[in-house]
C-alpha cells in the first residue's frame, strides 16, 4: 500500500470530523454542566468546518481512496452537505428542548457527530463492508440517542424496538451481501457490477441477494412493509432525535441505495424495480392513510415520512440518472421540510410540556402569527402545493415516472398525495381556525427562531427558484455517473 493509493486527503472531512468528535468527547468529561455551551459551540464549529472541507474538496471528478474502499464523487459531496446541514439544524432547534430536559450533555453532541460520521461513510463507501461499517456506526449512535432520556419509558421502548428491528434489518442486508459475494466473488461495488455485466455472476443467487438487500434498504428507508419501527420511534424519541432520524439519515440511505442498486446491481434493474414499485406504492398508501388518524404530531410526521420515502423510491425505480436526480432533489427538499416541521414542534415545547399533540398547535396564529405562517409554509410544502419547494420535488418525480411510461403509477402517486393533503390541512386548520387554549408565549432562543424562520422561508424561496438546486443535484448525479474511476 502506498500513500498515493491511500489518497487519504479526499476523506479529509471525515478524518477531521472523527478527530474533532474525539476531542469534544474528551473535553466534555472535564467541564461542568454550566459550561456545557463550550462543547455545544465546538460541535457547531466542527460541523461548519466539516461543511467547508467538503465544499473545498468538491470536484466534478470522482476520486477513489483507501485502495478503492472509498469514493468521493459529487453525489457524495452534496449528500454530505445536506447531512451536515440537517444535523446542525437538529442541534440548533433542539438546544432549548434538550436543556429543559437535562439532555444537554456531551453524549448528545458526540453521538450526533458519530452518527454523522457514519452517514458520511455510508455516502462514500464503494465496498460492501465499508458501507456496512458506516451504516452500523450511524445506527448504533442513533439507537443510543433515542434512549438518551433514561427516565422516559416511551424512549426506552422506542430504542429497544429500533435496535431489535434495526439489527434484524442489518442482518438481512448482510445476508444479502454475503449471497452477492457468493454470486460475484467480490465485495467491491464496481467489481460486482462488472461481474454482473459480463455474465460471470450466478444470477439466481444474485436475485436472492437482491431480495434481502432490498428488504434491508426498505427498513432503513422506513418503507412499507418494513416501516413498523417508524411511528413508535418517532413518537418515543426525544424530539431533536426524531428530527435527526427524519432528516439527515434519509440522504445517507439514499446514496447508500444508489451505490448498491444503481452502481453495483444496475444489471438487475428490472428485478429490483418491481420490488421498489411495491414498496413505493404501499408506502405512499399506508403512510398517507394512516397519518390521517394520528393525534400525535410526531407520529403523524412519522407516517408522513413513510409516504415521502415512497416518492423517493418512485424516482429510484426509474433507474436512470434523471430518476436519481429527481429522488436526490426530493430527499434534499424533504430534509429541509422535516427539519422545519420538527423545529416548530420544539419551538412550542417547554419544560414539562412536549407539545407533541396536534391539539397543542391550536390557535398558533393568535399566539404567534409569524410561526403559524412558517408552519403553514412547511405543511403546504409537504402536501406539494405550489409555490413551495415540495411541489417541485413532487413534479420532478412525476416527470421521470411519466417519462418512463408509468402513467398509472403517477396517478396512484397523486391520488395518495391528495389523501395526504388532508392531514397537512388539519394542522393548518388547528393553527388558524381554532382558538388558542394555551396562551403562553414561545420561549425558544432567538438563534433557533431565526434559523427556523430562514429554514421555512427557504421552502418558499426555493419554490420560486428551484432551478439552482435542481441543476446542482442533477449535475452531481450525471457527473458521478460519467466520471466513475473504472
Amino acid at each position, binding site marked *: 500500500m502506498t500513500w498515493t493509493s491511500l489518497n487519504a486527503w479526499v476523506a479529509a472531512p471525515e478524518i477531521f470530523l472523527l478527530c474533532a468528535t474525539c476531542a469534544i468527547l474528551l473535553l466534555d468529561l472535564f467541564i461542568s454542566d454550566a459550561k456545557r455551551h463550550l462543547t455545544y459551540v465546538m460541535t457547531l464549529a466542527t460541523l461548519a468546518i466539516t461543511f467547508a472541507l467538503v465544499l473545498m474538496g468538491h470536484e466534478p471528478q470522482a476520486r477513489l481512496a483507501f485502495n478503492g474502499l472509498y469514493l468521493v464523487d459529487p453525489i457524495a459531496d452534496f449528500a454530505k452537505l445536506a447531512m451536515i446541514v440537517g444535523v446542525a439544524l437538529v442541534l440548533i432547534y433542539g438546544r432549548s428542548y434538550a436543556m429543559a430536559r437535562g439532555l444537554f450533555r456531551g453524549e448528545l453532541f458526540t453521538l450526533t457527530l458519530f452518527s454523522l460520521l457514519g452517514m458520511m461513510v455510508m455516502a462514500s463507501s464503494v465496498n460492501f463492508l465499508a458501507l456496512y461499517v458506516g451504516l452500523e456506526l450511524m445506527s448504533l449512535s442513533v439507537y443510543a440517542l433515542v434512549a438518551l432520556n433514561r427516565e422516559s419509558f416511551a424512549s426506552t421502548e422506542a430504542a429497544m424496538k429500533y435496535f431489535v428491528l434495526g439489527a434484524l434489518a442489518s442482518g438481512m442486508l448482510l445476508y444479502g451481501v454475503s449471497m452477492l459475494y457468493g454470486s460475484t466473488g467480490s465485495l467491491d461495488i464496481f467489481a460486482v457490477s462488472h461481474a454482473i455485466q459480463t455474465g460471470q455472476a450466478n444470477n439466481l443467487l444474485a436475485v436472492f441477494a437482491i431480495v434481502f438487500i432490498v428488504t434491508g434498504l426498505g427498513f432503513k428507508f422506513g418503507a412499507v412493509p418494513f416501516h413498523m419501527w417508524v411511528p413508535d420511534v418517532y413518537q418515543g424519541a426525544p424530539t431533536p432525535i426524531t428530527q435527526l432520524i427524519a432528516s439527515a439519515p434519509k440522504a445517507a440511505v439514499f446514496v447508500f441505495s444508489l451505490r448498491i442498486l444503481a452502481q453495483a446491481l444496475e444489471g438487475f434493474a428490472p428485478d429490483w424495480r418491481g420490488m421498489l414499485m411495491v414498496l413505493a406504492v404501499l408506502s405512499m398508501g399506508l403512510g398517507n392513510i394512516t397519518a390521517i388518524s394520528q393525534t400525535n404530531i410526531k407520529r403523524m410526521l412519522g407516517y408522513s415520512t413513510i409516504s415521502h420515502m415512497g416518492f423517493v423510491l418512485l424516482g429510484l425505480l426509474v433507474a436512470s440518472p434523471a430518476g436519481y436526480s429527481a429522488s436526490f432533489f426530493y430527499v434534499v427538499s424533504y430534509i429541509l421540510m422535516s427539519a422545519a416541521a420538527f423545529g416548530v414542534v420544539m419551538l412550542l415545547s417547554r419544560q414539562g410540556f412536549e407539545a407533541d399533540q396536534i391539539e397543542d398547535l391550536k390557535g398558533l396564529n393568535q399566539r404567534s402569527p409569524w410561526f403559524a405562517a412558517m408552519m403553514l409554509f412547511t405543511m403546504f410544502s409537504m402536501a406539494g*402545493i405550489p409555490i413551495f419547494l415540495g411541489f417541485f420535488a413532487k413534479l420532478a418525480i412525476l416527470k421521470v415516472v411519466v417519462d418512463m411510461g408509468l402513467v398509472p403509477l403517477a396517478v396512484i402517486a397523486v391520488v395518495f398525495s391528495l389523501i395526504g*393533503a388532508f392531514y397537512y390541512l388539519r394542522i*393548518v386548520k388547528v393553527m388558524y381556525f381554532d382558538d388558542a387554549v394555551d396562551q403562553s408565549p414561545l420561549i425558544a432562543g432567538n438563534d433557533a427562531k431565526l434559523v427556523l424562520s430562514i429554514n421555512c422561508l427557504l421552502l418558499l424561496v426555493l419554490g420560486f427558484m428551484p432551478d439552482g438546486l435542481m*441543476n446542482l443535484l*442533477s449535475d452531481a448525479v450525471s457527473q458521478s455517473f460519467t466520471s466513475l474511476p473504472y
Partner: protein
Amino acid sequence: MTGNLLSLAIWLPIVAGLIVLATGSDKNAPAARWLALMGALVSFLVTIPLYTGFDTFHGGMQFTEMKPWVESLNINYHLGVDGLSMLFVILNSFTTLLVVLAGWQVIQKRVAQYMAAFLIMSGLINGAFAAMDAILFYAFFEAMLIPMYLIIGVWGGARRVYASVKFFLYTLLGSLLTLVAFVYLYYQSGGSFEIAAFQRLPLTMGAQTMLLIAFFFAFAVKVPMWPVHTWLPDAHVEAPTGGSMVLAAITLKLGAYGFLRFVLPILPDASREYAWLMVTLSLIAVVYIGMVALVQTDMKKLIAYSSISHMGFVTLGFFMFGGASGNQLNSWAVEGALVQMISHGFISAAMFFCVGVMYDRVHSRKIADYGGVANKMPIFASFMMLFAMANSGLPATSGFVGEFMVILGAVQVNFWYAVAGATTLIFGAAYTLWMYKRVLFGEVANQNVAELKDVNKREFLILAVLAIAVLGMGLYPAPFTEVMHQSVNDLIWQASQTKLN
C-alpha cells in the same frame, strides 16, 4: 410600462397583501383597511390599460411576457391575455376592490390577515388567467386554494371547517390529475409546458379521452358541474360575504376558462366525441339544480345553487357543436357563454353582497327569518330588485344578454337543447323572485326586521357600482363582445380541427 402590465396585475396585489399583513395585530386595523383599499384600487387601475390597449382585431395573445423560470424543467414565466381571458383579469381586480369595501366594518378580527388574503388571492387569480405555461397556470391555480381555505376557515360560519376542507380537497383532487396530464403532454410535445405547444400537438383518440377525463375533473369541479358541485353550497354558505363574492364571481370562472383554454383547443376530437356528455351534464345543472334552488330555505344556499345553474349555461354554450359538418362550435353560444360568465360575475357578487348586507344586520340567512324588509330598507330593496331581475335574466340587464345568445346558438344546433336550456329563464325567475318576495315584501315579519336600517354610504357605493355594471352590460354589451370576438373565432377554428392524423 405596457411591457409588464400583466406582471404588475399579478404582483402588485400580492405585494400590497404582504404590506397589509405587516401591519400586524388588530390594533392597526384602520391602517390595514386603508392600505388594502389603496392596494386594491391601484391593482385595479393597472388592469385598465389591458382593455384600452387591447387590439380587438388580433385573436392571439397580447401583452405577452416571457422569461425562463425553471430551466431544468423547461418551465417559463410566460404571460399573455387574449379575448378569452383579458376581461377576467379586470373583473377579478374589480371584484377584489368591492370585496375589500364589503369587509370594511363587518370584519373585526384579524383584519390585516383578511384583507391580505383577498389581495394575495387576487394576484394569484390574475396569474392563472394570464399564464401561458401549463405549470405556471397550475401553480397559480393551486396556490389560490391556500388563501381561500383560510378565508372560509377563519372568518366563516358555524360549519366552516367542514366546508373549507371539502372545498380544498375537492379542488385538489381535480387539479392533481391535471398535473399528471400536463406532465404527459410535456413528454408528448417533446419537452415543453407551453400551452400553445400542447394545442398544436397531435394526439390519438385514446390519449385525448384520458386527458379529457383528467381535465374534466379539474375544471368541472371548479365550475362546478353536476355531479361534482356539492362543495359549492357548503363553501358559499360558510364563507364570509367577501369570500362568497370572490368564489362566485371569479374562481368559478376559472373552471370554465379551463375548458376554453385547455379542453377545446388541446382535445378537439375528444371534445366533439363527448360533447353530448358535457351538454347532458350542463342541462342537468340548468334544470335539476334550478329546481333544487327553488326549495332552499337558506338565502346563500339558494344563490349558490343558482350559480351552479347559471354556470351550467356557460358549459352548455361551450359544447354546442353544429354547423354543416357538425364539428363547428357555434359562435353565438360560445360568446354568449363568455358574456354570461362576466355577467354572472357581477350579478352573483351583487346577490351575495345583498345577502351579506341583511346578514350583518339580522345575523340570519334563513328566508323564514325575514319578511317585509322593503318597508324598512327601501333603497336596498330597489337595488336588490334590479339584481334579482338580472339573475332571472330580464332583458336590459346583463343576465339576459348571455342567456339569450346561448339559447340562440343552441336553437341553431339542436332545438331541444334550446328548450331545455330555456327553462332556466323560468326556474331562475321562480326561485329568485320567490325568495325576493318572501324576504322583501309583505308585512314586517318580526322585531329584527323592524329594527333594520337602510344601507349606509359604503354599501350604497358597492351596490351602485354593481348596478351600473349590470345595467351597462345589459343595455350595451358591445364593448364586452367586441374584444372577445376574434379570439372566439380562433378558438372555434381550433376546435374544428382534428388532431388524429
